[in-house]
């Protein structure tokens, strides 16, 4: 089943084009990472998917129109926009009561069990919790919802390393089960590299690259080239070249691994490196 399908998805704010006719298809059970610079249109795309913003073009999420059927859609979709959106005046017990009261797919016992593992008190107000605790609470709420699609927009922004690690561990171990679909945007690309099944780069409202992680690993190779082989390596047409500690690192798309092994150490690039190669490539510099 297709979780998200968009055709010609477009959104403008005045004369600014936030999304420029995007085509997108996310199958059920995938974990898609949307990576892009600030202002690339990531949040706009997610907001359209969540029914938070109007758009032009066709968009279907779990078979529904998100703009006209947001309330019905939200029975099957959970999202964490960022850690600051839980109402600060609310008590932990109240937010549990409220979500149990309005959400048909919320399992309160599951949320309670998750909270027991934390130091969060039921009687605390959310404004009294630390940022990490608020994320834990939000995660407890979201993981107790039997949703088909989970959307995370910079979920770990402003969290320390420990909570960030814990966040993705909980998500993968306790939540993801291959029938759910997860869409995540983040700038902390290195921490989701092993989590994702699919990758999408988005820049200035357009999709700059889209591939599965298997494809990513077989398609892109990075070679640390010894100085004497640099000229030979450049002849193979790398996508990008950078210098680290005086050594050249060249990134190749669709290159022959055997050929590359001869000229240096070959490895799978980080998403961040590919991102820089795809986005930061100045025309005419390397290619």
């Amino acid at each position, binding site marked *: 089943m297709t979780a998200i399908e968009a055709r010609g998805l477009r959104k403008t704010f005045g004369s600014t084009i936030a999304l420029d006719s995007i085509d997108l298809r996310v199958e059920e059970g995938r974990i898609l990472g949307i990576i892009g610079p600030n202002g690339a249109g990531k949040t706009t795309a997610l907001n359209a998917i969540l029914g938070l*913003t109007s758009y032009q073009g066709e968009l279907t999420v779990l078979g529904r129109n998100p703009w006209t059927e947001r309330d019905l859609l939200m029975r099957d979709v959970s999202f964490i*926009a960022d850690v600051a959106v*839980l*109402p600060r*005046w609310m008590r932990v017990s109240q937010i549990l009561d409220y*979500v149990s*009261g309005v959400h048909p797919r919320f399992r309160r016992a599951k949320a309670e069990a998750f909270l027991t593992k934390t130091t969060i008190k039921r009687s605390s107000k959310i404004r009294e919790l630390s940022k990490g605790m608020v994320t834990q609470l939000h995660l407890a709420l979201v993981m107790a919802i*039997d949703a088909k699609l989970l959307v995370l927009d910079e979920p770990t922004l402003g969290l320390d390393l420990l909570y960030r690690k814990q966040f993705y561990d909980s998500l993968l171990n306790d939540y993801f*089960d291959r029938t759910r679909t997860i869409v995540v945007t983040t700038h902390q690309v290195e921490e989701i590299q092993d989590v994702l099944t699919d990758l999408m780069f988005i820049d200035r409202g357009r999709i700059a690259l889209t591939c599965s992680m298997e494809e990513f690993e077989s398609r892109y190779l990075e070679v640390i080239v010894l100085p004497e082989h640099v000229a030979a390596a450049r002849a193979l047409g790398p996508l990008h070249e950078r210098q680290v500690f005086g050594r050249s690192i060249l990134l190749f798309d669709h290159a022959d691994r055997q050929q590359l092994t001869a000229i240096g150490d070959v490895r799978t690039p980080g998403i961040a490196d590919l991102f820089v190669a795809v986005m930061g490539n100045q025309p005419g510099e390397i290619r």
Partner: protein
Amino acid sequence: MSEQSSVVPESAAASLAALQAPRPMYWSVRRELWENRSIYVAPLLVAAVVMFGFVISTIGMPHRRRSTVLLPPAQQHAAIAMPFDMAAAMLVVTAFVIGIFYCLDALQGERRDRSILFWKSLPVSDPTTVLAKASIPLVALPALTFVIIVLTQWFMLLWSTAVLLPSGLAGSTWTHFHWFTQSLLVFYCLIVLVLWHAPIYALLLLISSWARRASYLWAVLPPLAIAAVEKIVFNTTYFGSFLKYRLIGGIGEAFIFKAPHSTDSLSRLTPLNFLSTPGLWIGLILAAIFITAAVRLRRDQEPV
């Protein structure tokens, strides 16, 4: 856990969902009461102050009551029933003020603190949310005010009875303050006011859903500016009279004051006249339009 719950067949999940039938309206209203405790704290405080003031005023009451009962019946009545009417009036005004401040913040506050993103992540529709918020000034506050007024008046009645009992004048309060008639009057008055003020509350909700900040200024400055411009340009005060009519005109349409009736007699009520006032229906239609617009805006607006 998650593996188990996710392999539940669709039909079983559906019946489970039916079992745990969500009640978004009920919980949305409760949510408002959790967030805005002033809705019940403020009237209770005012009631406490009124009761305290009344207790103070009963010092020396037997002495004064002896001279009061010598007055003509109409004046007797006015003197004895006056504190009860004052208590009711103060609580009615309190409810109106709370309603105004509540409405001005209701749809702006959630955008200001970005919690709207959390509320919208739950299966609660915009109409449900806005109607739940509108029900606070239109249903919850009047109902609460009614209960508090009745309880306050009962307290005053029993306290004055206790104070006057030794002097044998306790009966004079009961003769002039008929609690049941008075409760009916208060009930009628609250319904009249809420119907009459509905467009005001709805307009304030709309302003709160539209204004990015300073909804209070948006509510106050335009009417002031219109009145000022009208005064300067045409030297008239039609807009001022219009506002005054919308604020207190409903009472004039729903009660008759000049007839020589006893002050708490139900014969002063003119519900048919009130219901046939065009201003009432125009106001209610406007209220519906404003609320519909607020629903649309809540869907379109992003956090501020």
